[in-house]
């Protein structure tokens, strides 16, 4: 299942009669790529990745030698998932500012995991949180970008409070102020 070394099928821009067909094919490939590469070991179906991170990784992994796709092609391709019957991943905007591709319930799942982690280890910084969250997966299932947004959301909701020191920002579960 090593996608990088064995490209199963080359999606060559020039072989497509029109852009739409090309995008459909790209959409399928992106979908497959995300499903394979971003699943966590324990929870296959919990996937969440920012489009920015995905754009860099997908191109560097799958498009080398094929011609990279453009940011807008990536966006458009992801927008076609539903029509193509690829329903398990959807575009979702986090905190009104960062566009992600995510499976259903993944946000709540990561949210809960982080809170649980902070309950056990109060005062982690974002790097520790990201590392701990990915401890059980072979790669990195959740990037710092995703963890940042989930944390931001928790802070906005009041579930997490911050300790801002010169040494950096650390996070605590809020079980004091409701």
């Amino acid at each position: 299942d090593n996608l990088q070394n064995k490209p199963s099928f080359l999606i060559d821009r020039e072989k497509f009669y029109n852009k739409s067909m090309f995008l459909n094919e790209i959409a399928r490939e992106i979908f497959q790529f995300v499903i394979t590469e971003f699943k966590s070991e324990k929870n296959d179906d919990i996937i969440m990745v920012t489009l920015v991170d995905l754009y860099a990784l997908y191109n560097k992994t799958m498009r080398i030698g094929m011609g990279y796709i453009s940011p807008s092609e990536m966006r458009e391709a992801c927008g076609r998932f539903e029509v193509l019957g690829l329903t398990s991943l959807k575009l979702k905007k986090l905190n009104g500012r960062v566009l992600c591709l995510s499976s259903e319930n993944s946000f709540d799942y990561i949210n809960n995991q982080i809170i649980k982690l902070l309950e056990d280890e109060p005062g982690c910084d974002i790097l520790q949180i990201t590392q701990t969250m990915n401890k059980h997966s072979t790669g990195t299932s959740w990037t710092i970008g995703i963890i940042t947004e989930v944390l931001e959301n928790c802070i906005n909701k009041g579930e997490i409070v911050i300790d801002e020191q010169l040494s950096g920002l650390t996070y605590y579960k809020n079980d004091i102020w409701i």
Partner: protein
Amino acid sequence: MSAFDELPKVYYFPPLYTRQVNSLIRRQQIDTWIDLILQYAKSMNCWMMTSEGNLIQTKIDELTGSDSNAIEKKSLFVNETIQRSIPHTFVEEIWTHMVENGKAIRTEHDIESNSVYYIMWKGVDLWSSVILQWFETAVKLNQVVTLYELSQGDETIGWDFHGMPEPLLAKCIKSLCDRQRATIMKDEYGKPVGVKVI
């Protein structure tokens, strides 16, 4: 200082010292600080605090009757155990709320260019009731009692306004005056010195 050890666990919660971004949470955080200040001042039996979190103990010289202020070295706002302290700008926000809620009254005097606040672990109205109660219990109605006697006299020992700075006592009694229950006597400089409760 052992008085810090008496404080609730939240005092050792590091995020308490960072101004929280969520406004609802911050509101509660500020309330927590107000409670801590009140509780700390009360447990130390103290009436004044600098804006920097240092309590001020008023010492009365028994011979001359003159008073002097001793400032606690340690600030409530600096937690050495967990090495945290509240940033100045946030401290100011806390005092603003505290004054608005009537839990602190800014005095007219600064110490080392820091403002000084009376810490109202009871509100002015509640204090005036307690004082009134003392006048009734001690059978002091319709006679002039000096503020010095109220604050330092043997007869108020055991009452929790014992030791209250005279200007603060005057403020509390002012509320009795407003209810036509008291008259304040002033010295030749206009400074309140005695009170008659009717």
